[in-house]
Structure formats: C-alpha cells, structure tokens
C-alpha cells in the first residue's frame, strides 16, 4: 500500500469527518423531498471535497471549488424553483425511473472503482515540501498548457453564446414555441397544460409518470 504523506492525526480526523459528510450529503441529494434542498446538499458535498483538496495542499483548487459550486448551485436551485413543481418539499417526492438498474449500476461502478483503488499499485511520489502549488498551477496554465487553458476559455465563451441563442424567446425563424405542443396527459392524448385549453385547472402544465 501507499505510504501517506506526513501529516498529523488532526488531518486524518478532519478527513474522515469530511469524507463522511461528502458521502452522506451526496446520498441525501437523491433522497430529499425538496429539490432546493437537494441542490444545497450537493453544494455541501462539493464544499467537503473542496476542504479535502485544501488538506491535500491544493489550496487554489479547493477554494475555487467553493465559489464555482456556490454559484452553480444557486443557479441550480433557482432553476428548480422556476421549473419544478414542489420545490419546497411540501409534498413527498420520488421521481425515479429504472431504479433497480440504476442502483445496480451505481453499486457496480463503486465496487469496480474501489477494487481498482485498493488493488492497483500506484507510484508513491507525494508532493515535495518545497512546492508552491498555486504558483506552479499558475505557471502551468499560462505557460506550457496555455493552449489548453485558452481553448477551455474559448469553449466557455462559445457555450455562453450558444445558450443565449438556445434559450431566447425568439429564434432566427420566429418564436421559439411556434407550432409546438405540450405532450398529452395520456400517451397520444390531447396536449396538456396550455392555459387556453386547460380544462382540469388542478393539473396545470406538468406531466408525470409513475414507475
């Protein structure tokens, strides 16, 4: 097995706590009734991983994780509230499909990956004490790997333009919704949820299956 870096018992305890927190909150994401709560559980999981990264001396990455994920999860929670019914968890929620297969896939991938983690032999070359991780990352990003870094930036810019086009109300050929109909409540049934033909007012616009 791999020799650990030299660190105190405090770091080990902290790691154990954070690891538990990360896994438990990750699990709660899919087990809570409220989607807003789910996205904030995910945020806690990310923050726990970020702190672990700081413990691993990747100071920039850990802190960057905090603010990246804080913004991402805020947006996510906002979208939840915007699009989903029941964002507040007033109703119990269980919106899953193919659950058995999914559980199987999750467990199998966990087993395979952990087997790899435990059985494979990785080289033991810890970070040298004199390394300044932030400086080395900066030099790499704006030095040898500048092309990669810049392409990532370019892709982000393209994405931004793309999503504005995708989500705007009016496309190049007229209104985005023109000619589209919501799916029926029964398969093949009448379109649901369009306000003008909404007969059963209780049901609003959503359409959900149970499995």
């Amino acid at each position, binding site marked *: 097995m791999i020799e650990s870096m030299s660190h105190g018992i405090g770091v080990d305890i902290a790691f154990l706590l954070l690891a538990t927190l990360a896994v438990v909150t990750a699990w709660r994401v899919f087990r809570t009734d409220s989607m807003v709560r789910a996205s904030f559980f995910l945020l806690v999981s990310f923050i726990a991983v970020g702190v672990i990264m700081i413990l691993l001396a990747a100071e920039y990455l850990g802190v960057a994780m905090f603010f990246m994920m804080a*913004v991402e999860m805020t947006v996510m929670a906002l979208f939840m509230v915007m699009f989903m019914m029941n964002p507040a968890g007033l109703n119990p929620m269980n919106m899953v499909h193919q659950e058995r297969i999914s559980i199987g896939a999750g467990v199998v991938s966990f087993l395979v990956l952990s087997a790899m983690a435990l059985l494979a032999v990785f080289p033991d070359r810890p970070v040298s004490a004199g390394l300044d991780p932030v400086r080395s990352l900066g030099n790499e990003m704006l030095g040898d790997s500048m092309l990669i870094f810049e392409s990532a930036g370019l892709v982000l810019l393209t994405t931004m333009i793309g999503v504005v086009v995708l989500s705007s109300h009016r496309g190049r050929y007229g209104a985005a919704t023109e000619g589209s109909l919501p799916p029926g409540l029964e398969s093949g049934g009448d379109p649901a949820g369009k306000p003008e033909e909404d007969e059963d007012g209780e049901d609003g616009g959503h359409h959900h299956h149970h499995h």
Partner: protein
Amino acid sequence: MIVEELVLPVLMVFFMLAAGAYTVAVLDRVIAGALGTPQTGSVWIAPLARGAWLMTQHANATEAPDWRAWRLAPALYLSLAAIGLAVVPWSGSLVATDLVTSVVLWGSVEALATVVIFLHGWSANALFALIGGYRYVALGLSYILISMFVLIGVALPAESLQFTQVVASQEELWNVIRQPLGLPLFLIVGLGMTFWGPLNLADSADLAGGTAAEISGPPRLVWDVARAAMLVAFSGVATSAFLGGWLGPWLPGPLWVAIKMLAVLLVLLLLGRLLPRLAPERCVTLMWVILLPLSFIDLVWAGVGALL
C-alpha cells in the same frame, strides 16, 4: 503551537465580530439621528438594549418552514462574515488566517453569501421572504462577476492571491489611485453583498423586511449581527485591497487599518441612508450593462499597469 495557530486567531475573529457589529450599530444610529430620525437615549446603549429585547423575544414559527435551513442560515451568514474578517490583515504578521489564496477565499465568501441569503428567504416558507430570496439571487449573480474582475485587478500588481501580499504591493502607491475604478466598483459590490441601503433588495421595505420579514427573537438578532459583521468584513477587505491596509505614517499598522475601515464603513452607511432603494430590474441592468464593462476596463487598466 495550538494556542498560536488556533486559539489566538479564533479569539481575534470573535473580538472583531462583536466590536465590528457594535460599531456598525452605533454609527448607523448616529447617522440616522443626524439625518432627522427622532431618537432618545444614548447611542451607546441603544444597540445593547435592542439586543436584549431580541433575546427576550421568542423565536416565532411559520407554517411548515424548513427548520434546519431556516435556523442555520443566520448562523451561516455570520460564519461567512467571520471568514471574511479572518482574511483581513492587521499588519504584516497579525492576520487570523494568512492563506495563500485568501483573495479567492473572499470571492467564495461572496458567492456563498448568495446561497445563504437565498436559503434564508426560501426556508421560511413565506411569501415576502421568498421574493426577497429570488431578488437576492438576481443581484448576487450580477455583482459577483464585477467583484471577481476588480479583485483580480488588485491581485495583478501584487503577483499573489494573498491579502498580505496585496497590501505589501501598495507600498509605493495605493490601489485606490493606481486603479481609480476599482474602489467605487467594489463599494457597490459591498452594498450588494450586505444588501444595504440602495441595494437592499432582499430585506427591503416593500417586502416588509424581505427574507427577515418572518423572523423574530434570537434568530433575528443573529441575522442583524451577521449583516453588520459582513459590512465590517467587507470594509476590512476593501481597506486591504485598495487603501493600503496597515500602511501609513506615524501610527502603528493596526490603528491605520481600523481608521481606514471606519472610513469605508462611514461611506457605506451614509450611502445607505441617502439613496433610495434601486428597482430590482434597473439594478440588474445597471450591473450588467454599465458596471460589468467598467470592471473589464478596470481589469485591462490593471493589466497594462502591471506590464509597464
């Protein structure tokens, strides 16, 4: 070693939290009195009396709130303020946590503040609180980019993401002069992240208190203290980033920091009392259309300055 690395910084942050929040309360009362709000009693005792009143009051309940999030949110906001205060250097060596990425840490405090304030509004399961939460997300997503560009601007001449280095880099010229756009933009960010005065969209009067509309008693006390402490933390960061932190003649460094922080606080509180609350829509437009390009210019300015 434990005493030096853990106990001392924690004590320092606690002291700053308490003293800072008290200062803000007193200052705001003095300003309000000067602007014509009728008041009696001593300005020094009034904040304490208010605290005592909130402590005796019961924390109330709304119908089916998200209890954990609702009670945690004020405490989380307070701890974010504490993190902010912890990165403020009082002198070259006197700083609670001298993380090499403290500038980025402050950035994440700003981002997490959005989360916490939204959570506070959302979890009350009440109308005005929820609208306040929404509004804050719109505001938070707008100011965070401006803040990032401005902060990168001050990190450039320092060639470091560490606040102590940022202050040290201002030995010759303070950033407030070197990057003239920086401090005004950053002050607007500060008003936004503490939702104070003109940018108080989350806890505003037209929402009967917004995210705080439904809280009473000790949670309200924590929330008020946290807002005041966040204002102090922000002015500390602004001091280090733009006003040369502990640098200054004659007086010892920490005293300079305190004086500069008081000055920033005074400006923020005055702005808060003198300006009307911005309409949310206009506020977001202003941020994206005018202030964000300005922060680009500030960044380019800083970059060119660093190259020369």
